[in-house]
């Protein structure tokens, strides 16, 4: 516990340093202190995952009334590991990235507070401590979204969406905890003991309320609307933390409360979780393919991955209740491994998006291109990140998706029909999002980094500073190791997934370097597969050089008879995704406007032609807009009460008093 507390302390010191140091000497020391704090947390979490012993800490000094209770078990440690892993990179990145808004006193302090809460939330072991860190996490990230608002005016609207959604979620979580804590006591161990005595209905209501809050933080459809606004609007290191660590906190909450505090409950809870997952995976995957803003694409793909994780968590819960404990364990391990792998590659991709924005001044894929020539390191990071999320065998996304699929496949043996249906939907969603993700990320790499520059900004780009490159390489490298030798993590993963459940003797994974299911038929060896790929590629490369014995000659690309081809003739991100957008037009509801201005002399000739194509979030437009409009209408109506007449105000005050007296 000492090391973990030291980590929290270091983050707090970093926050103080950010708030107190003078502008010129602020960024580097603060960021390095934060990185040190995260490294300490990483080590502490790893130690707990290796030994499997939970540690606890209580002090009455920090929070009033109840004091602060912390307890770190393997499940919590897994999520601390995830946060700290990205946190290190975000801090190192900050050294080269922080300027203007983000380098201000408030922003630097809030960044470190945000880090602190990300590391602290999975350890909180009482309702008060949990809600304290949870709300601090929401507030600090809210302020960070606004850090760059002078350059990103859309940040204001994003912050309002985020603020409202996150506080509704927090209220819902608090209500849920109140239902469970009705019998008195507020520490998690009290709640766990009381929940066994609760009626199934009360437990179900409590779980639904808490699920609502956590699912909105995790960005599950239809509670996701804030995510594709807030994540892109935040400065890139903050986006990286939000997308890979903060989203994971929502998943953590669902697992902690559902499996640990409420002991699993009924099958329908997990059916709901899985359905949220299926909806998120498909909806996020589809929108990622049509997004042209780099960070918006990444944000939607986060929703997609969260969906897969929730499918795993839901399947694990449902299968656990259907008597397939060992299969449930595999699904849970898949979900947890995906959380960690996603933190690595999505963190790296968001940092790379920031690097691209810094170098070119835009995040619009339709204006990028050709960055592989000027930004080779960033391009490599993006290629590996895209490969991981596309689940290219041997990269980190693959091992986790494989585990997840194994959990689902063997879950077909479940006896309960709802469980089998959920598992089937999970497999279908996993398969479909695999294809959609490939389109989205081939588009990101191919349009953004290959080909020719589509704007002057992209043509003049140059590689970003050392610290930013180091941060991206750290996340990418660690991700590659996780993908190649997932066996290293198996023991830790096993402990984390078993938290809150009785251990099943038949479960699990044997491990050399790859993954081998014990008791079920299935195995993968990513390192050996990579070996095979490398051997073939080297052989082919050598033969290619030897057989030809000639240097490569550069020629013009074939232009259909044209002498010169301009970068404008290339496919753009919009045109690349157009066929798929057309296929899924019923879901995406794309809107296209064509405006034709005719020449004055004859309407058979056009003077100018404007075409606009946009894809809006259907859930937002159809689900949220009417509610918001309704509330605004009521608000405007209420304005009529306020006509400036003091008599009316006095009468209203009197009426209100009467109502209160009568009701009370």
């Amino acid at each position: 516990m000492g090391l973990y507390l030291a980590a929290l302390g270091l983050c707090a010191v970093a926050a103080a340093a950010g708030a107190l140091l003078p502008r010129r000497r602020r960024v580097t020391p603060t960021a390095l202190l934060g990185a040190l704090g995260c490294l300490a947390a990483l080590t502490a979490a790893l130690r707990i995952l290796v030994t499997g012993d939970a540690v606890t800490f209580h002090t009455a000094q920090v929070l009033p009334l109840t004091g602060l209770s912390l307890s770190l078990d393997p499940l919590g440690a897994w999520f601390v590991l995830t946060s700290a892993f990205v946190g290190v990179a975000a801090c190192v990145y900050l050294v080269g990235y922080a300027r203007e808004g983000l380098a201000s006193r408030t922003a630097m302090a809030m960044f470190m507070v945000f880090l602190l809460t990300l590391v602290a939330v999975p350890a909180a072991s009482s309702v008060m401590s949990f809600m304290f860190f949870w709300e601090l996490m929401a507030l600090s990230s809210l302020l960070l979204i606004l850090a760059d608002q002078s350059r990103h005016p859309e940040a204001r609207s994003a912050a309002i969406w985020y603020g409202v959604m996150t506080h509704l979620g927090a209220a819902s979580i608090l209500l849920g905890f109140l239902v469970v804590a009705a019998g008195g006591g507020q520490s998690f161990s009290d709640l766990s003991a009381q929940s066994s005595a609760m009626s199934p209905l009360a437990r179900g209501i409590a779980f639904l309320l808490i699920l609502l809050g956590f699912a909105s933080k995790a960005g599950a459809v239809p509670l996701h609307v804030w995510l594709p606004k807030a994540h892109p609007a935040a400065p890139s290191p903050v986006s990286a933390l939000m997308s890979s660590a903060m989203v994971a906190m929502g998943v953590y909450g669902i697992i902690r409360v559902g499996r640990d505090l409420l002991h699993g409950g009924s099958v329908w809870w997990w059916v709901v979780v899985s359905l949220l997952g299926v909806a998120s995976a498909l909806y996020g995957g589809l929108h990622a393919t049509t997004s042209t803003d780099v960070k918006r694409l990444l944000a939607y793909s986060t929703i997609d991955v969260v969906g897969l994780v929730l499918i795993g968590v839901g399947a694990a819960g449902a299968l656990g209740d259907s008597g397939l404990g060992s299969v449930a364990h595999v699904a849970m391990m898949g979900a947890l491994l995906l959380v960690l792998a996603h933190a690595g590659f999505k963190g790296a991709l968001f940092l790379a998006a920031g690097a691209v924005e810094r170098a070119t001044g835009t995040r619009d894929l339709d204006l990028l291109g050709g960055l592989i020539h000027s930004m080779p390191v960033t391009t490599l990071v993006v290629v590996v990140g895209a490969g991981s999320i596309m689940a290219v065998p041997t990269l980190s996304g693959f091992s986790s998706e494989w585990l997840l699929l194994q959990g689902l496949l063997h879950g077909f043996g479940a006896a309960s029909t709802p469980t089998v249906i959920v598992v089937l939907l999970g497999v279908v969603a996993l398969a479909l999002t695999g294809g959609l993700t490939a389109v989205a990320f081939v588009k990101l790499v191919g349009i953004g980094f290959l080909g020719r520059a589509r704007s002057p900004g992209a043509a003049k780009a140059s590689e970003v500073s050392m610290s930013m490159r180091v941060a991206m390489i750290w996340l990418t490298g660690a991700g590659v190791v996780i993908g190649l030798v997932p066996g290293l993590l198996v023991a830790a993963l096993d402990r984390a997934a078993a938290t809150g459940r009785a251990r099943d003797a038949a479960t699990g994974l044997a491990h050399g370097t790859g993954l081998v299911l014990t008791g079920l038929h299935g195995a993968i060896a990513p390192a050996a597969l990579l070996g095979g790929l490398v051997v073939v590629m080297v052989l082919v490369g050598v033969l290619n050089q030897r057989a030809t014995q000639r240097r490569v000659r550069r020629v013009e690309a074939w232009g259909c008879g044209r002498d010169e081809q301009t970068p404008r003739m290339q496919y753009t991100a919009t045109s690349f995704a157009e066929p798929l957008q057309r296929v899924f037009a019923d879901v995406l509801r794309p809107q296209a406007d064509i405006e034709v201005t005719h020449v004055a002399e004859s309407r058979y000739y056009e003077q100018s032609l404007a075409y606009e194509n946009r894809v809006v979030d259907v859930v937002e437009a159809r689900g949220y807009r009417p509610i918001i409009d309704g509330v605004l209408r009521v608000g405007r109506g209420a304005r009529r009460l306020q006509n400036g007449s003091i008599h009316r105000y006095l009468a209203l005050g009197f009426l209100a008093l009467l109502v209160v007296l009568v009701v009370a």
Partner: protein
Amino acid sequence: MSADFWYGALATLIQVVVVAFGGPLLVGLMSKVKARSEGRVGAPVTQPLRDLWKLVAKERLHARHASVVLGLAPTVILASTVVAVAISPLVSTRPWLSSSADILVIVYLLLTGSAAAALGGLDVGTAFGGMGASRAMTIGALAEPALLVAVVALSIQSKTSNLPGIVSATLAHPDWVLGPSRLLALGALLIVVIAETGRIPVDNPSTHLELTMIHEAMTLEYAGPELALATLGEAMRLGLLFSLVANLFLPWGISTQRSVMSLVAGVAFLALKTTFVALGVALIEVRSAKLRLFRLPELLAGGFVLSVLAVVTGLVAR
């Protein structure tokens, strides 16, 4: 080194060699069948192999604005296909790394190859490359899920998604072959195979018509040895998919014993089975017209629905 190891090594080597030569031969055979049924003599069956040989000796040309990706993409296409061929149950159920020959590995190896081809197309920065990449990825995004789900349907009965496991289980239970779930999955797989190998009605491999070409548009900028690599990769992919269809549904003849004779028999049976699949696909090609690009999703969605139905049927019959 144990005998099992050497048997596995031999099986892997044979599979790679057989598919490397067999893939182009199957392509040649299909064009021959098409030519004959149209009343032409057609090129000899070995023509694709001769083309490859000719291309290898040519000069290496790269487009002016291309990066390293253009040179790397054909290598990745070939490598991902070769690894998939090496570990799949084609000639034998026990080649090297066959314990890793999970359906997810094979599907995502194929997807890696498609992604590499698309990136190679986008790298040159021309309209054609982008067009081909966009269309190919759209089709891949709809076809590969169907492939995955169709094999999942097979894995319900055999309780594993490991391909050699599925093949061995089918050998042990011949009565599974005519089950409704299997037939539905076979239908889905055939659609996937036609889409993935770019045959009519999805794509026409023998045309370079700008408005309709899909796969050829991506490889337009390749020349000489790189074109040979990409073409060989695609031919091997065709060989792999045909062999998988054959072996997952009619696994008989595949080598399960540790003997050289069984390997020889395995090669012969594989050649026979894939020839039948190729003849079938060629007949479909002869008898159908190429679909418009925006009608394709209907066909592919049909394939996906078939595969999901196969899973549902499998679950009901369980």
